[in-house]
Every structure is written in structure tokens, then in C-alpha cells.
């Protein structure tokens, strides 16, 4: 018999807000000293009251709209109770009764073509802390830096049927959420986490099989391995009766390549959800809703198409730029100043890219001022700054976003002088110093002139228009 796998995902993404969801502690503590980003509120101490960070709701709405969801105009927060030492108040504030976004749709593309994945809901919640096990001391320490960092949980319908589709779906979520600049979605940093609900049924059947939930996958590769393992475990159980499948939560061990049932104690229990009386319902009025809708970026496909049709860029260049909203915004800003989409794209894909690479920065980390880049491009096109010096200026702009290309060029003597007298005298000196090259040139070896050209350029510190220098040099030699 042929089987099909039915998969639904619960994806947690850390929202990229500056502060935590209910207090003003910094939400960015990756790699920070344990318990250095905490206060009595996010440590669950008595007397502190939660105050909703409006930015979190902004981001929750943005995520919902990017995933084509309906936004609940009155959204509420609820308490979920359970005991664990990384949960300081013994409850997590989450959204149970009225999540911010529901009924969405995400289009994915795999080798089998395009497919829609339905989104059941997106809810906002606070993260828990982290337990750090110290093997030497045989003790466990608690780090609350991560408690109350805002998360969204994106719950899909069971519309996925293979590891390939799951990968495409996760990549799509990552792209869309990064485009809206609401989340980093980096599994390696723990800013994207994923639980997999999986069941298996005979192909064509409309009845769902026994569902298991898998946790603890730390990379897309691990998720794919876990899905493949779990699928064959289910089929084995159905076909060969190797075991009886039960609805349970299982932990994936990527090193052993196996999933294990978690102790029932770890999963059993009633979360006793109820509305948090300390957090008033959040009412999203039209003004707020419109503000958020209008702030959303175009989808990547739309940008790619527009770059080709409107700006006349190649498909490859458009595709490259559309990979990251940071590249797109920088490119569009540069273009708006320099007026040439081709020049702006060339600079983005050559010089800007190589600067990013040299600094080991991801595309999304680009903070270069696009308008300033446009000014720089204009300086080069107008022949006011040589290309080599322009690269030096760009380097400075990467280090300091406030650098003005024109001022920097001026200050560092990079402005091409119109003083042809200086150019003439340099040409004269350099030609006189290399009679052999002149003789070679005159005897027909045209390339021989390049040595003299290089020396002139160096003497002029690059501050001349290459074409003018070349022309003047040839004229001078020919006049000898």
C-alpha cells in the first residue's frame, strides 16, 4: 500500500523588538551574561504588573498580514499555568481565546509545483528562560535573560506532506517575516523553533492517522531527518505491527537519529488557561490597522518582477536584490538619488556584497545608508571621484552610516581636480622617466603605455578622470 504523510507545524519565532513583551528589559541577550537582562517583572516577582509592549502587537499584526491572515480587532492575553524552573511566575502569558491573527494562507513552491498551506492562527506570547546544566557541579542554573522575550507561534493546518514541503514552508515563513522585519527566524540562534505534528494514512484516505508531536529539532536538516524517521516508524507500525502508535509527544535525538516518547509527566497536565485580568484586551482600531498595513513591504516576487519590468534589470540581478528587504531598500534609496537603476544594482551586487562578505554580515544586517550610496555613485558617474577611491569611501560608509561621501572625499583629498596643469606636468615627468616604454609604444606595442599611465595615476593619487588622463598621455607621447 502507498502511504501519505500528513504534517502540521507549530513554529515559534522570536520577534525582533528592542524590549521584552511586558517590561522594558532589552530583548536582545543572545550571548550575554546570564541574568543581565532581567527585572522584577520578567523574573515573576510579586507586585510587578504587565504592560503590553505596543511594538509586539505591531509585529504580531505585520506577521499576520504577511501570512494573509484575518486580524482580530480585539485581541486578548491569557495565562497558561505550569511549573518549571525556567518559568519564573509559573505561568506564561499567551493568547488562547482571541489570538492576534487567524485563517491565513502561505504559498510554497517545491519540485512538485505550487501549493497553499493554511494557517490556523498566529498568537503572541512570552518566552521562558533557559536552564543551564553544570555537569562539574552537578547542579542546574536558571538564566532569565530570555523570559518575556516576545514570540509569535504560527500554527499551520495539517496541509504539508513531505520534508521537502516543510523545508519550503519554513523558508517561506523566514523570507516573509524577515521582509516585514519582524523576526530574524534563525534556527541556529534559537530565534525560530519548530514542533512537528505528523501522522500517516493510506494514500487518498480522508481519515487522519494517529498523530505524534516531535520537539527539539534545531535545524531544518534535523527536521527533515526527523520527518523521514517518524514517517517510516509510523508506516512500520501500521504495516508490520512493530508497535502500537499512540498520540504522544516525542523528543528528537538528532545524534542517534531517533525519536523517543517523552515521559508522560513532562507532557501531561492541564494548562488551566484563563484571561489575564492584568492585561486589558487590545483593541486594534482602523487607524492602527491601516498604519500597519501601509507599512508592509511588497512581497519578494513582486519586487523581483518590478525590478525587471520597471527598472530593466536582469532576472538574475533582480533575484539577487529581492533576496533581502535590506538590499532592496538600500538599492531603491540609492536609485532614487543617482537616477540609474543599473548603476545602483551594479554597486549593490559588486561593492556592497563584497563589503558584506568581508565583514561576515548577512544581507539583513546591512545598515548602509542607501541615499548616501546614491550620492557616491553620482560622484563616480560625474567623474568627481575615481573608482578606487570610491571603494575606500564606501568602506568608510560601512563603518559609519553617518559618513557623507562628498564630505569624506573632500576631507581625504579624493576629489578629482580640474587642474590640467598638474596632470600635464605629471605626464611630462613620468614620460621622461621611462623612455623605453615610450619607444615601445611608438614601435606599435600599445600596451606599453599602461605602465606610464599607472605611474601617473599613482602620482595623482587617483584624483583624475581616467579617460582624460589617457587621452592627454597619448596626445603628449604622439607629440614628441
Amino acid at each position, binding site marked *: 500500500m502507498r502511504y501519505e504523510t500528513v504534517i502540521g507545524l507549530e513554529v515559534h519565532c522570536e520577534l525582533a523588538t528592542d524590549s521584552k513583551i511586558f517590561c522594558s528589559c532589552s530583548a536582545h541577550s543572545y550571548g550575554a551574561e546570564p541574568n543581565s537582562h532581567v527585572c522584577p517583572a520578567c523574573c515573576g*516577582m510579586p507586585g*510587578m504588573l504587565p504592560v503590553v509592549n505596543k511594538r509586539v502587537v505591531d509585529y504580531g499584526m505585520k506577521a499576520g498580514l504577511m501570512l494573509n491572515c484575518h486580524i482580530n480587532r480585539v485581541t486578548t492575553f491569557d495565562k497558561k*499555568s505550569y511549573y518549571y524552573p525556567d518559568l519564573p511566575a509559573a505561568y506564561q502569558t499567551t493568547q488562547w481565546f482571541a489570538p492576534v491573527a487567524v485563517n491565513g494562507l502561505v504559498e510554497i513552491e517545491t519540485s512538485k509545483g505550487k501549493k497553499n498551506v493554511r494557517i490556523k492562527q498566529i498568537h503572541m506570547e512570552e518566552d521562558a528562560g533557559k536552564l543551564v546544566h553544570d555537569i562539574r557541579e552537578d547542579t542546574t542554573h536558571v538564566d532569565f535573560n530570555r523570559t518575556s522575550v516576545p514570540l509569535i507561534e504560527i500554527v499551520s493546518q495539517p496541509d504539508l506532506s513531505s520534508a521537502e514541503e516543510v523545508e519550503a514552508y519554513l523558508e517561506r515563513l523566514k523570507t516573509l517575516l524577515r521582509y516585514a522585519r519582524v523576526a530574524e527566524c534563525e534556527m541556529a540562534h534559537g530565534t525560530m523553533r519548530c514542533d512537528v505534528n505528523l501522522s500517516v494514512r493510506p494514500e487518498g484516505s480522508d481519515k487522519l492517522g494517529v498523530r505524534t508531536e516531535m520537539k527539539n529539532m534545531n535545524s531544518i536538516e534535523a527536521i527533515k531527518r526527523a520527518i523521514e524517521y517518524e514517517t517510516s516508524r509510523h508506516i512500520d507500525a501500521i504495516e508490520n505491527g512493530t508497535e502500537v502508535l499512540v498520540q504522544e509527544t516525542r523528543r528528537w535525538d538528532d545524534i542517534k537519529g531517533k525519536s523517543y516518547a517523552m515521559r508522560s509527566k513532562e507532557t501531561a497536565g492541564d494548562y488551566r488557561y484563563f484571561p489575564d485580568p492584568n492585561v486589558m484586551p487590545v483593541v486594534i482600531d482602523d487607524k492602527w490597522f491601516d498604519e500597519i498595513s501601509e507599512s508592509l513591504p511588497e512581497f519578494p516576487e513582486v519586487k523581483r518582477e518590478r525590478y525587471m519590468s520597471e527598472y530593466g534589470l536582469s532576472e538574475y540581478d533582480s533575484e539577487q536584490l529581492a533576496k533581502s528587504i535590506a538590499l532592496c531598500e538600500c538599492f531603491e534609496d540609492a536609485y532614487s538619488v543617482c537616477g540609474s537603476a543599473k548603476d545602483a544594482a551594479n554597486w549593490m551586487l559588486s561593492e556592497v556584497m563584497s563589503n558584506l562578505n568581508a565583514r561576515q554580515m548577512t544581507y539583513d544586517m546591512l545598515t548602509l545608508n542607501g541615499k548616501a550610496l546614491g550620492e557616491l555613485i553620482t560622484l563616480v558617474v560625474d567623474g568627481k571621484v575615481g573608482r578606487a577611491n570610491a571603494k575606500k569611501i564606501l568602506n568608510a560608509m560601512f563603518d559609519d552610516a553617518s559618513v557623507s561621501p562628498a564630505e569624506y572625499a573632500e576631507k581625504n583629498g579624493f576629489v578629482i581636480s580640474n587642474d590640467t596643469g598638474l596632470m600635464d606636468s605629471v605626464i611630462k615627468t613620468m614620460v621622461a622617466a621611462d623612455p623605453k616604454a615610450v619607444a615601445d609604444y611608438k614601435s606599435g606595442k600599445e600596451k606599453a603605455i599602461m605602465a606610464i599611465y599607472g605611474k601617473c595615476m599613482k602620482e595623482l593619487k587617483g584624483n583624475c578622470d581616467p579617460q582624460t588622463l589617457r587621452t592627454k598621455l597619448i596626445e603628449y607621447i604622439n607629440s614628441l
Partner: protein
Amino acid sequence: MYTVKFDTDAKLKVVADSMILTTDSETNAGSKMLKGYKSLLESEALLKLKAAGYGLCGKTPVGEFAIDLLGETSVDGAYTKDGALMLASADAVKTGDADIALVLDVNGSVRRGTAQSGLISVKPTYGTVSRYGTVPVACSGETVSLIGKTAEDCKNALSVISGHDDKDGTSLSDELCKSALSCGSVKRIAVLKSMTEGADSCVKAKIDAFVNALKENGIEACEIDDTVIVKSRAAWNILMSAELCNNVSRYDGVKYGYRTENFTNLDELYTNSRTEAFGQLLKTAILFGSDTLSTENYMKVYDKALRVRRVVLEAFNKIFGEFDAVLMPACSKMVYTEKDTENKFLSYTENLYTAPASITGLPAVVACGVQLVGKAFSEGALLDTVNAVCKEGK
């Protein structure tokens, strides 16, 4: 009478009960769990009083998480005089140690204690005084309240602590908070017959005396019947216990507070710390509250209690169409003896009288041994009325 006593030269002295968090002294919420606990933050209301020149003269004990009758479950011991249970914070005012007591009214012990001491207390409209820096128990209804010798003392202190606070998400706008303090006159009062029926003769006499005093002052008092408001108690007990269960879950022996010495693993650490540190009434409330929130009971019990809350408020508002305030007892008798505390759960029935204002968030003023529950934002008018009517304490 005190957990901690301070010397203060301030002209106006305030005593705070042990639900009001302070950074320089112990706040134990009446529980062994928090014995010796010093907060990292201080109550917003207390900070405002201090800024206005009030000096903190002491901290008074409360019953464990302030849900008992009159402090009898306190880790610091019950406070009694001549065999009668007393509310320590009220007695600090009565004896003249303090001009005002800053307290958290969770389950009515504040109003019972005030009524029995012949003092005046005000439980302001929910949301007009910041709850920041108070030990959370039943967040949807508990209110920072004041006890004083005169209505004027209460009103003066209330004008200091009332106001919007960004640190409390349920805090109302300054404009609304201010409106609650405006002067006003109460012309017609409804006497809730269904509430007085179960009270003893001393209480009934207090109600009668108050009605007479009202009439002497030209205020109309009519007996009315109501079958909804008396249902507040059952719903309040559900909501209070559920929220309490959730709020006291944080005391698990891991980070602060009492930790058992008797454990070999995490489950035992949790269970034994809580078993050893919590008293019987609290444990019962936790179990009851936990049960009402279970998946099985949520809709049947908890959600229904939320709906009752709305219905009770509607019943009040209907009465307020005709009347300015509702008169009812604050307790069933004027003295509780230690014999009364043999019934460990008396506070879960005695709160019949205090639950209506707690569940609705309406303002309540206790004076002359009785309780007036008014329209939202009418505490200023209620205090003015008792100031005119009440001869006690003057």
C-alpha cells in the same frame, strides 16, 4: 500589632499592611512562604503618600494572602483584644499610632475590620489607584484601600494615591481617577433587604441607626429586594480562588521565599516547599481555584462566574437608575471571637457582604459599622455623605 515598627517625625503617619510591598522592610503577605521577604520594588500608592509628606510608621500583619476573616491565618499570629479578633491595620489607626492605613482589600477583611472598629474605610473604584507594588492575589477585583478615623482623612489620602499609573495596565486615565474624588451629594439610598436578613441583631441595629441618620440629614432611604447581588459571593469565590491559585504558583521554593530542606528532586522541592509553607485555608483555595480552571470545569464554572460578574454589575446599574448608593452590612456580626475561627472557611461565607463591590469593582465606603456601595467613580460623594451623616469617630 506590628510586623515592623518605624519612628517617623512626619506630621501625618501611615501604616501599611503586609500586602503593600516595601523595599526597606519585610512584606510577608501573612504567609510563612514569604516570611522575611524584602521586595525590590515599593508600592506606588505608598511612594505617593511618602512624597506627599506621610511618614511610614509601621507594617501590620495580614491573614495569609489576605483572604481570611480578619488576619487569623497570619504567619505573625492572629491579633486579638479581649478575645475579639482585630484587624491590626485598623487598630493602628484606632489607637492613634497612624492617621491612615494603606491596605489591599482582597476578600473584604479590610471592610469587616473597619466596620467592627467603628472606623471609616474606602475601597475606591477599580482602576483608580495603582496596584503596582502590591502582592497579587485576585487581580481582577482587589483594590488598594484606605482606613481612617474620619472621612476627610480618607479623602485627603485618596486624593494623593489616586491617579493613572503607566506601570499598571488596568489603571484608568487621570481624568476618570479625578472624577471619582469630586464632591457630590447622595440623595437616595437603597437598603438591600436580602443582604441584611442573615446578619445578627447588632448589625441590623447599625443599619437601622444609619438609615435614621440618613433621614435626619434629608437623605431618602428605601428598602429594596434583589436576588442577583446576593449571588456575587459564589461567583467571587470562584474568580478569587482561580486567580489566587495562579498568582501564588510563583512561590515554588526555587527563587525566593521558603524552601523545604526535605527534597531529592524538583517535584519534591516544589511540593514540599508549598506543603510546608502554606496554611490550610490557602491550600483549599488553591485546590478549589485550580479545579475551576481545569479544562473540564472552565466553561461550567469559571466562565459562568465571569458572566455572573457582568450580570451583578447590570443589577447594580439598574438600581443606580433610581438610587445613588446601596446600603448593606459589611459583616454578619460586630465582633468575631476566636471561636468563630474554628470554622476555617468562614471568610468564604462571610464575604457575602463584601463580594458585591469586589466582583464589580464598584467603590465601597464603610462607616458607622455599615457599608455603602456606590456608582463607579462616586467614592468622593460617598465619603462626603458619611462625613455629614456619621457621628462616630468624630
